[in-house]
């Protein structure tokens, strides 16, 4: 009995060691191993892992080791700085500018040309996102865009046509007014639409009012379109009292939970992307009826849907040990079969122009074609390719918050962020001018 506990300890320790070893696949001899980091976890990581496994089986030269990596921007920055980057990394497309201008990526122009990869293969906006300063820095992995997602049951119960989403901001607000419910004390219980739910894109509301964030030469946050959007935001605290709005918003549960305000019916219309399908499947009540359409523009005569398009991208960090092999993997992911497997697994649409005939039939998201159509719109936009995008997002979040709480007038809030960001932009341009020629020559070298 005296020795039983130590023996049990050693048995448990060895069992743990061997069981964990059993999960690591053995790398076949003679392969070049490339390390691939991506930010995905959960089902999204599993979808990519399946593609990686297919690639590893498909040839006998390269072996991809896939790691699901949290805080990838910070870790990748430090690994590149430390001279030990992975061979392939998965990033958000809106971070390409900052990596490229810091000479942290390998230009892919030549390798793509040699592999026969051209812009015509892709939905145009995705090819555009992968370029910066005239060079190709990445190829897409899985894309997304935004649309108006609405709760059909709430529409029906309130005498609205559940198949007819609002066609303009004015209509959206008319519906909003019909869907507002308060309790006996006058506190908000439910609402049609709330620009702060989930509040992930406070910088881009101006797009639906004809505004833009950057004109290629200067920051344009105080442009008339952005001001009109902020004026629209300012109507909320006036109509509903900012204190009530804050209290109402505080009662919402986490996005990834059954208490999500959209799933519980407290908000009937939200700006969301194709991933919402997965969360509806997991957290919304059974039989949840929902629809997807373009988020309405202020001007009903706007000729095409306006949307934000984003894509995750695959890059080869500067200093990667096996860039050729890394590109072979990226190229494989961008073949139609692999891309469709990835996008089906991640419940997204494909960024490729050509899609298999059964892709949409097999896709679990019934509205995926609508999202793809939105991404193909001539008025689809991506965030400006600026190194100060993160700062712009943060500043616009503050401006939105000030207007939302009634602490600032729209014009004043926008002027403040305009001045700050224009000064930062000029600083950046001045600093960039010190490096630009050297780096361009380096990137242009054959």
């Amino acid at each position, binding site marked *: 009995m005296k020795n039983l506990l130590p023996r049990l300890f050693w048995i448990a320790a060895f069992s743990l060691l061997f069981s964990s070893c059993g999960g690591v696949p053995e790398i076949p001899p003679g392969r070049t191993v490339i390390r691939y980091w991506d930010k995905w976890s959960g089902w999204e990581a599993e979808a990519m892992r399946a593609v990686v496994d297919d690639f590893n089986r498909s040839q006998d030269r390269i072996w991809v080791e896939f790691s699901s990596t949290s805080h990838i921007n910070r870790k990748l*920055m430090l690994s590149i700085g430390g001279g030990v980057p992975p061979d392939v990394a998965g990033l958000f497309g809106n971070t390409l500018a900052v990596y490229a201008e810091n*000479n942290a990526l390998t230009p892919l122009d030549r390798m793509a040309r040699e592999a026969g990869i051209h812009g015509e293969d892709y939905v145009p906006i995705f090819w555009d996102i992968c370029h910066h300063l005239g060079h190709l820095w990445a190829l897409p992995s899985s894309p997304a865009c935004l649309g108006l997602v609405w709760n059909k049951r709430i529409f029906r119960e309130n005498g609205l046509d559940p198949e007819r989403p609002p066609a303009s901001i004015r209509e959206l607000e008319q519906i909003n007014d019909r869907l507002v419910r308060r309790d006996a004390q006058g506190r908000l219980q439910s609402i049609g639409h709330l620009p702060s739910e989930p509040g992930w894109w406070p910088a881009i509301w101006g797009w639906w009012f004809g505004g833009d964030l950057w004109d290629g030469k200067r920051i344009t946050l105080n442009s008339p379109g952005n001001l009109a959007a902020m004026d629209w935001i300012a109507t909320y605290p006036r109509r509903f009292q900012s*204190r009530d709005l*804050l209290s109402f*918003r505080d*009662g919402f549960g986490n996005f990834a939970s059954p208490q999500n305000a959209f799933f519980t019916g407290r908000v009937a219309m939200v700006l969301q992307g194709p991933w919402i399908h997965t969360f509806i499947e997991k957290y919304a009540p059974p039989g949840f009826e929902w629809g997807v359409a373009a988020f309405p523009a202020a001007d009903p005569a706007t000729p095409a849907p306006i949307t934000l398009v984003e894509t995750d991208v695959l890059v080869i960090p500067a200093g990667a040990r096996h860039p050729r092999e890394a590109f072979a993997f990226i190229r494989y992911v961008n073949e139609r079969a692999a891309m469709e497997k990835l996008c089906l697994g991640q419940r997204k649409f494909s960024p490729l122009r050509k899609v298999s005939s059964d892709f949409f039939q097999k896709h679990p998201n019934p509205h995926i074609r609508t999202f793809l159509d939105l991404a193909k719109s001539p008025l689809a936009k991506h965030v400006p390719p600026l190194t100060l995008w993160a700062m712009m997002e943060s500043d616009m979040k503050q401006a939105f918050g000030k207007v939302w*709480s009634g602490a600032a007038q729209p014009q004043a809030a926008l002027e403040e962020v305009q001045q*700050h960001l224009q000064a930062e932009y000029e600083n950046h341009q001045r600093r960039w001018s010190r490096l630009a020629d050297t780096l361009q020559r380096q990137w242009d070298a054959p």
Partner: protein
Amino acid sequence: MGRTMSAADLRRLGTGFMFIAPWLVGFLALSLYPFLSSLYLSTCDYSVLAPAVWIGPENYTALSRDPIFWKAAGNTVLFAMVSVPLGLVLSFCLALLLNAEIPARGFFRTVFFLPSLMPLVCLAVLWLWLLNGDLGLVNACLRPGLQTLNDLFGWHLSPPNWLQDPRFALAGLVLTGIWGVGHPMVIFLAGLQEVPRHLYESADIDGASRWQKLRHITLPMLSPVIYFNGIMALIGCFQVFAVPYVMTEGGDGPERSLLFLATYLYQHAFEYWNMGYACAIGLFLFALILGLTLVASRISSRHVHYEGA
């Protein structure tokens, strides 16, 4: 003076250096080198990945004109000014209570100390819910009291949206910090047990009241402990990061009311890729803490009483 060292002295010196070598290597590699490196990089345009370009005092000039930096500095100082005295007074009072002869004293000491062992991220998530304007426990406790006041005086008071309202966000964070009073409380308790009994006995013979004993015996005898706890709390407040970072989901809070110097430094270093600017913020923070510590040391020489000194 002027005596050359003998071989035995040199051997002893070498042995001494061997003993402190682990600390010395750690200090040189992990403190002095990063400090000097930051000092240099604060005068550079540096993003970690592109080569550092020397720009002289440009980062410091920009810092002096950066309203967001001054907002963060103001928030940090205000937080420290409220949090440090409040934490000291509370932990001291708790220590006094738990030093008294009360039933289940050990149990209560453990209960009050336990919250300070909670990891900061868990603490932040827990307090996010406690301070929720609609469903939070803090407001659930405040609501009946405010309702009574409203009924009595015809007012229209309602509990605040703690972390959504810029007027209350900092107060919410101070409340959160109160959970950490267990650590200074234990140090105060240890200090209280070191106060010689005979001083209280003499005071009793002289007919001193409880307040007089506290004022003229306990406080002077505990002054080194108060000084130590104060300095540690001050440094902790100036480095506050994890709790507001989690509570604001990596943001700044409403109207940047929860933006602190450490958060702003992090944003510039790892989100905006301005490592040179971040180094300048770091050095400002260093100078601020150093300056306040020196001021505290100067004050302590007059007010801190060391037994036997």
